[in-house]
């Protein structure tokens, strides 16, 4: 087992290897964690990154909430007290201020869209989606994400591999270039015995095998499972809010029995109801692919730019990717909000006071 940073400088005999890109997340260990029946469950590298994002988000929320609570108590004890900057106790600062501004913006936005009677139940869901997706996306820019991990033997048919050299005597390895392998790696020939020998550090002189890197951390949203899970949660919540707002009549949107009694156009309306079911499923697909596609493409873009011009230029693309990570989180939250507001308006009743956001359809 060994570790390799892939992003190093070329022309100084420190090569920049083109990272191995694959759509499903890489298993950190080659052995499955556990098996149920014939299904094998691996520890994939998006899982630690999602847990890390959870911890970061919880810590931020906890520290902001603790500060707000402490200040509130101090204010109640002595309304004339001032903080270290000489300001009133209830003037927010630091993370508390950032969270308060963000939450207030969303709270007001959601109130204008769904109305004051629903804002308290819709707000937690939409806000959670926004903060969670944003944190996971921005974790992309932490050090060691995507470039430090465990080396595995490259297997033919899966990925191209690189030879490695040890840095000093540290047990840490980096990729090396040779003329025949080149900068984008070579198709490996897989020899299980050689791989096993290399794993125990018993590779003989002159023997060489090719490796791929399974990073310890990879952005959670570059694994299609996470966007799918959030999309399923969001669309399920949309149905629940629809039922809560309209009762059983919500389902006439899908199976429009009352329209059948009208005859004529009613039959058409009944048929259109089934298209609504397809439309709900398409929303899940579209949610999933939008988030996954944007962030995965961003990851590949950063890899390619880092490989082509490793100094300076990637910074510009990092800025672009921060922007995209933020916009995708915003879009996910706002689309959930619009779908909820559409679902809560009765079918056929043109209730216009639900704001301009009700116009979006997938």
């Amino acid at each position, binding site marked *: 087992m060994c570790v390799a940073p892939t992003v190093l400088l070329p022309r100084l005999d420190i090569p920049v290897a083109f990272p191995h*890109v*694959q*759509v499903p997340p890489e298993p950190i260990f080659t052995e499955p964690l556990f098996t149920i029946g014939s299904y094998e469950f691996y520890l994939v590298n998006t899982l630690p990154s999602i847990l890390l994002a959870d911890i970061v988000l919880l810590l931020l929320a906890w520290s902001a909430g603790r500060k707000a609570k402490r200040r509130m108590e101090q204010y109640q004890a002595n309304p004339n007290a001032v903080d270290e900057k000489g300001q009133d106790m209830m003037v927010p600062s630091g993370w508390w201020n950032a969270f308060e501004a963000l939450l207030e913006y969303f709270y007001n*936005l959601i109130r204008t869209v769904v109305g004051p009677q629903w804002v308290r139940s819709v707000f937690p869901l939409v806000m959670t989606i926004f903060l969670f997706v944003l944190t996971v996306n921005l974790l992309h820019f932490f050090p060691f994400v995507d470039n430090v991990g465990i080396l595995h033997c490259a297997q*033919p*048919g*899966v*990925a*191209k591999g690189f030879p490695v050299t040890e840095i000093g005597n540290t047990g840490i390895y980096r990729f090396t270039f040779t003329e025949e392998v080149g900068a984008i790696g070579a*198709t490996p020939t897989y020899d299980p015995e050689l791989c096993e020998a290399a794993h125990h550090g018993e590779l003989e002189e002159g023997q060489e095998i090719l490796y791929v890197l399974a990073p310890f951390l990879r952005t959670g949203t570059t694994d299609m499972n996470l966007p799918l899970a959030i999309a399923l949660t969001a669309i399920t919540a949309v149905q629940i809010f629809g039922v809560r707002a309209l009762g059983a009549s919500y389902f006439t949107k899908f199976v429009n029995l009352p329209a059948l009694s009208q005859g004529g156009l009613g039959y058409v309306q009944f048929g259109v109801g089934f298209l609504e079911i397809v439309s709900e499923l398409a929303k899940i697909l*579209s949610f999933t*692919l*939008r988030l*996954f*596609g*944007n962030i*995965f*493409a961003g990851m*590949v873009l950063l890899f390619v730019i880092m490989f082509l011009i490793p100094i300076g230029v990637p910074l510009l693309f990092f800025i672009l990717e921060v922007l995209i990570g933020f*916009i*995708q989180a*915003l*879009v996910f939250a*706002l*689309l959930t909000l*619009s779908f909820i507001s559409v679902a809560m308006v009765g079918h056929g009743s043109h209730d216009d006071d639900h704001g*301009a*956001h009700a*116009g*979006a359809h*997938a």
Partner: protein
Amino acid sequence: MELEAARAIAAGIAMGIGALGPGLGIGILSFGAMQSIGRNPEATNLIQTNLILAIALTEAIAIYALVVALVLIFVGVA
């Protein structure tokens, strides 16, 4: 034709043509938004929010093409 070459060409075509429509669409959307902001600067915030939503929905089409292209390039290639 070699399979890998065919995949590379197919991915290029998928992304190239797939980006054409959404590109035009986002252009038209932004055109409309810019014009309305110019006419009614007070409505900027509302227009911006809706513009981002509309762009996200338009962009989703390009993302479908992108996913197809990525799958063509990265899935099952040695």
